[in-house]
């Protein structure tokens, strides 16, 4: 029982990185960014290749952040500089990334057990070597998720962060402040996709594998977690959006765990999960689209 909670928590915390990314584009920038489905496996692809080539596991995270940022930059430039519609810009990047990911890591790539990941490498062992692998994964995932959350909170409180929040809220105001709203959006997309790619990298470390199709459905996952999280804490204004989406991510994975655990026919899984989401949303008294555009 405790084990299952722990493994669900690990999943929720790791995938929370994707939720952070989608939170920035969808909730803050009001930009439906579909490049996520491509930048997530991109992070994993780069990580898998670097790990198998003996790169320092911690550095792979940095590499993933960089390539993710680049992917976000692509979507941003396509939208802001080439004036392509937001939805379409994301689709273009996502489509291109599918081929790029195949070029980087092939259709799939497994990282052997002899290769150290961030969960087994020296510094991690030095700090948490006394813990079991599962608990170590939990601690590392928790540290990363909390660190990113705190960094984001701190960023949102800076002048640059305020401007980013302003551009999604009211782009006219940003222009009135003599700032190019396009560049602000671009920055938001860069940050978002960097986080999503970091999520992909963590998944690659955790599962020791990359698959070209692993990005499918990540946008939907991200949206669901943002909506669940924001809906749950709507009445508690002191709860930050970043906290809400972490909880949303964990809850999403918990919904799946519960659905799995109810022992229902495997093919009914998605239906059960959908019903659980609906219950969460109805119970918190508000439907998804209202939250997003609130």
């Amino acid at each position, binding site marked *: 029982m405790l084990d299952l909670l722990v493994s669900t928590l690990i999943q929720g915390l790791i995938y929370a990185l994707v939720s952070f990314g989608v939170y920035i584009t969808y909730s803050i920038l009001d930009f439906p960014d579909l490049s996520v489905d491509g930048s997530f496996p991109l992070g994993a692809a780069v990580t898998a290749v670097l790990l198998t080539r003996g790169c320092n596991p911690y550095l792979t995270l940095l590499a993933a952040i960089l390539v993710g940022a680049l992917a976000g930059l692509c979507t941003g430039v396509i939208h802001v500089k080439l004036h392509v519609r937001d939805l379409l810009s994301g689709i273009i990047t996502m489509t291109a990334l599918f081929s790029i990911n195949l070029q980087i890591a092939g259709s799939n790539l497994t990282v052997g057990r002899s290769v150290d990941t961030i969960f087994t490498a020296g510094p991690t062992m030095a700090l948490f070597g006394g813990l079991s692998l599962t608990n170590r994964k939990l601690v590392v995932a928790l540290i990363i998720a909390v660190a990113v959350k705190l960094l984001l909170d701190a*960023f*949102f*409180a*800076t*002048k*640059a*962060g*305020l*401007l980013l*929040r*302003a551009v999604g*809220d*009211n782009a*006219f*105001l*940003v*222009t*009135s*402040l*003599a*700032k*190019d*709203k396009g560049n602000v959006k671009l920055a938001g997309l860069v940050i978002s996709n960097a986080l999503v790619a970091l999520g992909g990298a963590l998944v690659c470390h955790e599962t020791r594998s990359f698959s070209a199709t692993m990005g499918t459905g990540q946008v939907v996952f991200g949206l669901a977690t943002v909506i669940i999280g924001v809906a749950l804490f709507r009445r508690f204004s002191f709860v930050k959006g970043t906290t809400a989406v972490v909880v949303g991510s964990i809850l999403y994975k918990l919904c799946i765990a519960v659905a799995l655990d109810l022992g229902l026919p495997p093919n009914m899984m998605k239906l059960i999960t959908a019903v659980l989401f609906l219950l969460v949303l109805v119970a918190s008294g508000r439907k998804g689209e209202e939250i997003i555009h*609130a």
Partner: protein
Amino acid sequence: MLEVQEVSKTYNPGTVTEQCLFDKFSLSVEDGQFISIVGSNGSGKTSLLNIICGSIPVQSGDVLVGGESISRKKDFQRYITMGRVYQNPALGTCPNLTMLENLSLADNKGKSFGFSRGVNKKRINYYRGELEGLGLGLEDKLNVKMGSLSGGQRQAVALLMATMTPLNFLILDEHTAALDPKTAEVIMQLTNKIIREKRLTAMMVTHNLRYAVEYGDRLLMMDRGQVVLDRVGAEKQSTSIDDLLTLFNKISIECGN
């Protein structure tokens, strides 16, 4: 000084809906002048503001500020020394940010938006003082989200934000039109107070003929892309609402309205 020189603007050029609005339109505004502009819908009032702000492109002509052309500058670059308050109170502030965050953003206009703290705690007392000056009791609502304030309150804050940093030029685009009469009156008085106190150059488009007569030191009436009435100083002071209404009706009849 702001100069609009021989600006031509045609909407939908080369199509069946082609419509020429301005043909070599010129206007100059003295520093410190507060101009009220009236005119029927489609007379070119708002288009003029948009041309000055760079929100819409023109076919020819030039816009100069202090003798320097700003035609090549993008809209956001022009706003460095320009402020604008829109008709829709929602456009002047960010609804999901608190009033304090909104004011902090406005306070930082023209500077870089880097990684220093977004809200400067040392400025809070200054903001509070400015809000007190509005006389709307907003000074106690610094941590309230803008979206939960009324339209009039938001417009007052938008006005404050637009004029917080030094400006060459303030643009008021029917900024009282979406408010109820009482609130509109309050905002209009505040506007006048701020313009006079800060000695701003301002252009106000309004549908309210009384405001146009009562406020400002120059009055323009526009019709089909042309200035049909331009009164300054004493001549403006002697203009009555009835004078305006007579002219306005005459124009409207010519237009077939």
